[in-house]
C-alpha cells in the first residue's frame, strides 16, 4: 500500500475550516493548528506514526473538551466544534486510502457546515473554491502520481458539470416552509434590539456598523421623515430601563389611510421575534402576527436571515375606540420628583393633550438640549438629571424624558423602539438600514386620534431625521465610520464600493437565499404543475422518481462493483489478507498473481508457508475455480480473520531463538 498524501489532505481541511475560525472556540482552533502542524513536521522529518493508544487518548481528550465547553446546552455551534476537533485528529491516523477518503469527506462536511453559519454571497463564492480544492485532493488521493494542475483542472470541470444539476435541485428540490434547521447553529450575541431597553443601550448600538435589514419597495419610496421602522413597544418603566407589555394580544384597532406602502424586508438574524415595519402596518406575511400595539411578531426567533413582505399606511388613521389602560401612565415611585412636578404643572396649565405635547417639545427646544452620543453619567433620578442638569443625550434620553413627562402630566404615553431612516442604495434600488440607524421615539394617546407619534429627538436635532445620523452627530468627534476623518475621495470610493457590494448581496439574498417553499410552488405553478403547500407533493412527485433512480443506480452498482457474488466477495476477503501482509512489509505488486505472491511471501517468511498457501489455495479456488459455494467463502473468511502473520513470525523466531 502506498503512502497517503497527508499534506494535500490537511490543505483541504484548512481551506474548508478557514471560514469557521471565528465561530469556533479558540481552543479548537489551537487544537487543529497543533495537530496539523505536528503532522506536517512529521511528514518532513519522517517521524514514526502515532501509536493507537496515543490516538485514542487524543480522541477522548478532544471529545471531553467539546463536552466541557458545551455543557448541557449542546447546540449547533458545539456540533461544529466537535467536527473541528475530529477534523483536527483525523489526519493522525491516515494510513490507507480509505482513511484518506474519509478525511476528504470530512472536509466536504466542514464545507457544508459553513453554510449553516454564513449565508452571504462572498461565503458562497468561497465555498465553491473550497469544494474545488477538496475535489482536487479527492482526485489526488486516488491518483497520487498524476499532475496536480491537471487534477485541479479536472476538479474544476467536475464542478462545472455539476452546476446544471445544482440549479435543477435548487429549483425543484422540495423546500420546507420555515426554518429547516430548527435549532440555531450558533447563538452568538447578535446586535440589535433586545426585549428590554436600558438607557444607554441605543447609543451603544449606534456604534455598530452592521446592516440590520434591507428593504425593497414595491411602491414609491417614502420620504426620509416617514421611515420609522417600528419594532418593539415599551410600556413599563422602572427608572432605568423600559420593558414591553407582559401580555400582548393580536386584537388591534383597525388602521386606515391613503398612502399605502408595500415593501419586502430582508432581516438579518437578531435572535428576537420582533420584525420591523413602517408605521403602521396593515398586512403582514403569514409568518408573523400584528399585535395590538401594531408591532409584528414572528412565530419564532430569527436566527437566520429572514425575508417578509408587509404593507403599511404612512398616513395612518386609527380606530380610537379603546382608551388605553392605566399602565401607560405608570411611573416608578419615588423617582424623578422634579420631572413629576413639571408634568403636573403642565397638566394644570393645559387641558388638551396636544397642548401638553407642545409644551414639552418647546421645553426641549428652548433649554439648550444637545444631541450627542456621549451623554454625561446620570444618577438614580436619571430623568431629572438629564432634564435639569446635563441636558446632553441621545434619542433614548429624549424619548424617556418625554414619556416620563407625559405620564406625569396624565397623558398616556409609550416608547417605540426601532430604526429610523436608512441609506438608499441607488445601484440596487433598495434601502439599507444599519444598526447605527437605531432609534427610539414616543407615542402619546390623544382622544379621537389614537396613538400619535411624537419624536422629541426631532425637535432637538432635526438633522437626525432628515439627513441621517452621521450628519446629526457631525462634530461629535466620533471615531471610525461615524466620524468623517478620512480623505473625502477615499470615503466616496469606499462608499461606492460598499454600496455596490451591498447591491450585489441583496440581489443574491432576494433571488437565491430567499427562494422559499412558496416561491418554489409559484414556479412550479408557472410550469403547469400545481402542488399544495404541504409536504404531499414532496411525497408524490419527488420521492418516487428518486426511489426509482436509486434502485436503478443500486442495481448498476451491484452489477459493476465487486463484492456481491461469492468470487467477488472472495476478492474483498483476499484484500484483507493483503492488508495484513502489507502491514508486515509484504505488499503485493499489482501485477502479481496470487500464486506468485504466495511464493514470494514464503521465500521471505518460510514460517508463513502453511497459512499463506492455504489462504491462497482457497482464494484461487473461490475466485478462479468452478464456483464454490458460500460455505467455502465462509471458511475462507474465517481463515483470513484468524491469520495473524506478525504473531506467527514472532512465534517462529522465538522458537528458533530458543
Amino acid at each position, binding site marked *: 500500500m502506498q503512502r497517503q498524501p497527508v499534506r494535500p489532505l490537511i490543505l483541504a481541511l484548512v481551506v474548508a475550516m478557514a471560514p469557521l475560525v471565528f465561530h469556533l472556540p479558540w481552543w479548537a482552533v489551537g487544537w487543529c493548528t497543533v495537530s496539523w502542524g505536528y503532522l506536517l513536521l512529521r511528514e518532513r522529518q519522517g517521524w514514526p506514526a502515532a501509536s493507537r493508544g496515543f490516538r485514542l487518548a487524543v480522541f477522548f481528550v478532544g471529545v471531553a473538551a467539546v463536552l466541557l465547553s458545551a455543557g448541557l446546552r449542546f447546540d449547533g455551534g458545539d456540533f461544529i466544534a466537535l467536527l473541528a476537533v475530529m477534523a483536527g485528529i483525523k489526519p493522525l491516523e491516515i494510513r490507507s486510502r480509505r482513511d484518506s477518503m474519509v478525511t476528504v469527506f470530512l472536509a466536504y462536511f466542514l464545507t457544508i457546515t459553513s453554510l449553516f453559519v454564513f449565508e452571504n454571497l462572498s461565503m458562497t463564492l468561497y465555498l465553491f473554491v473550497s469544494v474545488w480544492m477538496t475535489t482536487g485532493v479527492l482526485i489526488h488521493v486516488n491518483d497520487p502520481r498524476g499532475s496536480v494542475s491537471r487534477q485541479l483542472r479536472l476538479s474544476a470541470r467536475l464542478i462545472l458539470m455539476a452546476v446544471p444539476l445544482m440549479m435543477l435541485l435548487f429549483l425543484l428540490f422540495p423546500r420546507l416552509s420555515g426554518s429547516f434547521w430548527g435549532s440555531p447553529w450558533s447563538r452568538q450575541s447578535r446586535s440589535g434590539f433586545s426585549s428590554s431597553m436600558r438607557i444607554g443601550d441605543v447609543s451603544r448600538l449606534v456604534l455598530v456598523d452592521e446592516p440590520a435589514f434591507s428593504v425593497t419597495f414595491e411602491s414609491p419610496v417614502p420620504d426620509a421623515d416617514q421611515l420609522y421602522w417600528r419594532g418593539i413597544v415599551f410600556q413599563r418603566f422602572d427608572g432605568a430601563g423600559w420593558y414591553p407589555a407582559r401580555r400582548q394580544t393580536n386584537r388591534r384597532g383597525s388602521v386606515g389611510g391613503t398612502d399605502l406602502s408595500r415593501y419586502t424586508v430582508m432581516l438579518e438574524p437578531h435572535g428576537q421575534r420582533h420584525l420591523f415595519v413602517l408605521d403602521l402596518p396593515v398586512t403582514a406575511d403569514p409568518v408573523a402576527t400584528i399585535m395590538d400595539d401594531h408591532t409584528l411578531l414572528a412565530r419564532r426567533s430569527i436566527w437566520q436571515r429572514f425575508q417578509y413582505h408587509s404593507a403599511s399606511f404612512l398616513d395612518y388613521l386609527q380606530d380610537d375606540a379603546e382608551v388605553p389602560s392605566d399602565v401607560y401612565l405608570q411611573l416608578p415611585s419615588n423617582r424623578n420628583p422634579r420631572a413629576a412636578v413639571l408634568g403636573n404643572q403642565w397638566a394644570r396649565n393645559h387641558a388638551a393633550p396636544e397642548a401638553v405635547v407642545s409644551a414639552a417639545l418647546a421645553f426641549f427646544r428652548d433649554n439648550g438640549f444637545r444631541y450627542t452620543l456621549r451623554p454625561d453619567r446620570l444618577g438614580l433620578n436619571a430623568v431629572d438629571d438629564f432634564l435639569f442638569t446635563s441636558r446632553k443625550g441621545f434619542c433614548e434620553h429624549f424619548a424617556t424624558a418625554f414619556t416620563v413627562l407625559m405620564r406625569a402630566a396624565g397623558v398616556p404615553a409609550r416608547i417605540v423602539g426601532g430604526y429610523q431612516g436608512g441609506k438608499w442604495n441607488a445601484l440596487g434600488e433598495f434601502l439599507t438600514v444599519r444598526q447605527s440607524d437605531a432609534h427610539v421615539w414616543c407615542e402619546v394617546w390623544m382622544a379621537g386620534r389614537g396613538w400619535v407619534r411624537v419624536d422629541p429627538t426631532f425637535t432637538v436635532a432635526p438633522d437626525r431625521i432628515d439627513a441621517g445620523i452621521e450628519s446629526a452627530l457631525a462634530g461629535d468627534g466620533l471615531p471610525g465610520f461615524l466620524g468623517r476623518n478620512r480623505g473625502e475621495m477615499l470615503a466616496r470610493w469606499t462608499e461606492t464600493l460598499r454600496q455596490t457590494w451591498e447591491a450585489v448581496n441583496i440581489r443574491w439574498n432576494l433571488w437565491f437565499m430567499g427562494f422559499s417553499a412558496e416561491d418554489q410552488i409559484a414556479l412550479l405553478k408557472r410550469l403547469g404543475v400545481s402542488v399544495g403547500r404541504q409536504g404531499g407533493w414532496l411525497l408524490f412527485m419527488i420521492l418516487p422518481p428518486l426511489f426509482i433512480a436509486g434502485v436503478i443506480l443500486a442495481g448498476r452498482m451491484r452489477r459493476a462493483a465487486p463484492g456481491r457474488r461469492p468470487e467477488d466477495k472472495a476478492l474483498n476477503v483476499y484484500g484483507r489478507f493483503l492488508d495484513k501482509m502489507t502491514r508486515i512489509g509484504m505488499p503485493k505488486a499489482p501485477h502479481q498473481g496470487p500464486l506468485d505472491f504466495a511464493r514470494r511471501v514464503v521465500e521471505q517468511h518460510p514460517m508463513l508457508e502453511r497459512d499463506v498457501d492455504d489462504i491462497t489455495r482457497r482464494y*484461487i479456488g473461490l475466485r478462479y475455480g468452478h464456483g464454490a459455494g458460500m460455505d467455502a467463502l465462509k471458511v475462507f473468511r474465517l481463515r483470513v480473520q484468524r491469520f495473524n502473520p506478525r504473531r506467527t513470525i514472532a512465534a517462529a523466531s522465538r522458537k528458533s531463538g530458543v
Partner: protein
Amino acid sequence: MELHPQFETIVGQVGQVVLGKEEQIRMALTCLFAGGHLLIEDIPGIGKTTLAKVLSRCMGLKFRRVQFTSDMLPGDILGSSIFDQNTGAFVFHPGPVFTQVLLADEINRATPKTQSALLEAMEEGQVTSDGKTRGLSAPFFVIATQNPMELSGTFPLPESQLDRFLMRIELGYPDREAERLLLGGDRAQRLALNDLQRCLSPEDVLALQKQVDQVHVADAFLNYLQDLLEFTRTGKHFHMGLSPRAGLALVHAARSWAFISGRDYALPEDIQAVLISVVGHRLRSRDDLAEIPARRLKLLFQEVPVP
C-alpha cells in the same frame, strides 16, 4: 512449479535428452496440448531438432523433418500427383506434411509461396491438391525453426503468418552445468534418445487436448485477459494491439499451461507464464516497428494489475 504427474514423466524424459531446458520443454508441451504450432527461433546447433524428435517420440507420434530451401516448391511439402502408367491414372504421393509432428527446419529459407502452402495446412488441418482435399492426421503439430541471424537469401515470415504460430520460443544456450553434462556424456545421450519410452499414444494426446479445452476460465481470469488486450490496444508502446485471435491463443495456451500444472482452472499466473511466448511475435514497438525484447515486454505487461 507444480506439475501434473503425467507430464512430470514426459518433461523428465525429454529433459534427459534436451538438457537444462525444462521451461522450454514445458512450453512446447503446452503449445502441443493447446493444439497450436510452435516456432523456435534460435541459432543452429542449439537442439531444436532434438527437442522436436524427442517430443514426438515420447508422445508416440509420427515424426517427419523437412529442411526448407529456397528452391523448394509447395508440392515438395504437400505431395504431388504422379501419373501411374500401369493404372493410367494420377496417383497422389503424399508429401512430408502427412505426419503428426512436422519439423520445418529453417522455414524462412523457403519462398513465400512454399511457406504459405505449409501455413495453410497448419491452419486448416487439411491439404488441397488437384482439387481434392485430404485431411491431415490428428494430432498435427508443426515445429518450425528459423534462424534470426542469417538474413541473406531468406524470406522472413510476415506478421500475418507469424500469427499462425501459437507460440514462439527461444531455446538459448544451455547453462554451464547442462552443457558439461552434454559434452561429457555424448554417447550416453545418444543412447537415451534411442531408449526413450513412449509415454503416450496419439489417442492419449487427442484426449488430453480435449481435457485442456475443459479447463475452467473464471470471469476474473477473463477480466485480466481483456485488461491485457486492452493494454496493448490503448497503450502507447505498441504499433498495433493484439487481435482477437491472439486473445484466443492466450486463452488456449493459458488453459494448457494450467492443465499441465495440474489444475482444472486457469489463473492469471497461467497467462503470465505463456504471455511472452504467445504475444512476443505478434507485437511490434511503436517507435521503430521492431520486435520488443522479451525482458522489456515482461516489464511493460507488469503495468497491468491483476484484478
